[in-house]
């Protein structure tokens, strides 16, 4: 039984990584579909937490997220299995492509497919932002919405260091929890 879980974990990570075009963020909706909707290994809320931790930690988002998923399913061994599954596809593909990368880069068909795929990836990311953003707005609280827009401006236009944004948001989250707790007790 355990053996089967390991194999499934490895194959899932491998398959998702092989499809992660256009940057690590794409792994989030792919994992959502696979581990939350299909395999039911992870809850919706937990996936949100995993996204937040993976995004706030050093390293590639896809690798970080797969470590968290693997750890949840089968502990440290699970995490090592998913890391291996995530790293192997780019390792193999780049190893092969590196021998003829100029030909690959200049290939007309490859470029047509890439241009199409880029539009598809953009649609996938926009969809995930709307789905995740909805969750924030549905809470009908002002603070998370303000933090959302403030962080967006900070990341996109002022280009403030991401580590700083993460730290500030973590502090705001803790302060907000303390405040709600206090208010709840008084009521």
């Amino acid at each position, binding site marked *: 039984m355990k053996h089967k879980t390991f194999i499934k974990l490895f194959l899932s990570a491998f398959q998702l990584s092989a*499809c992660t075009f256009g940057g690590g963020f794409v792994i989030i909706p792919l994992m959502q579909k696979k581990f939350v909707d299909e395999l039911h290994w992870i809850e919706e809320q937990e996936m949100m937490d995993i996204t937040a931790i993976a995004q706030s930690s050093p390293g590639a988002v896809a690798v970080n997220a797969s470590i968290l998923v693997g750890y949840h399913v089968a502990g440290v061994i699970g995490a090592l299995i998913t890391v291996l599954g995530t790293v192997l596809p780019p390792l193999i593909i780049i190893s092969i492509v590196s021998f003829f990368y100029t030909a690959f880069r200049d290939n007309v068909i490859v470029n047509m497919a890439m241009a199409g795929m880029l539009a598809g990836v953009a649609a996938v990311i926009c969809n995930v932002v709307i789905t995740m953003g909805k969750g924030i707005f549905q809470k009908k609280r002002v603070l998370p919405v303000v933090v959302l827009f403030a962080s967006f401006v900070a990341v996109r236009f002022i280009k403030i260091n991401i580590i700083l944004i993460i730290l500030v948001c973590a502090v705001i989250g803790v302060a907000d929890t303390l405040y709600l707790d206090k208010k709840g007790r008084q009521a």
Partner: protein
Amino acid sequence: MIYLELLWSFFQIGLFSIGGGYAAMPLIQSQVVDVHPWLTPTQFADIMTIAEMTPGPIAINSATFVGIQVAGIPGAIIATTGCILPSCVIVMTLAYIYYCFRGLKMVQGVLAGLRPAVIAMIASAGITLVIMSFYGERVLPVDLSGINIISLIIFAIGFFVLRKWNVNPIYVMMGAGVAGVLLYSIV
């Protein structure tokens, strides 16, 4: 010792890149072009293009590419290992903490605080992807009329299909790739 140098260089890249692949680019450039004479600036530009065209995190893709150029397949494996080592240690520790203490109010507070910021970061990356797909550049041009109609059509259909039927994002990306080849061949 070339293997140790590769390991150490990509260890630093893995440790100091937070917030997704594009943030890692200048860091990779400094390590593999400036600090070490592993790639020429042209080769670096090539690998960034290839990394965007192939699946997987940009840091892992460039680790594999540089490793192969410098020390063959073992070099690729060692550079990749260096790149994911910080993630493995830090994220596994965080995973342990998360699964031990996620019931705690404080932990939930931190994660709730991070959530809007994470969505903002993904939204920013999504907008960059949309601009790249529609205009072929990372920043929005002054003249908006030069939009790529084929990309716009693929994006719109992909987005509609995702919102309406919640299909697997992998199919949307693959479909977009096929649509790219077909549409660009006709035009």
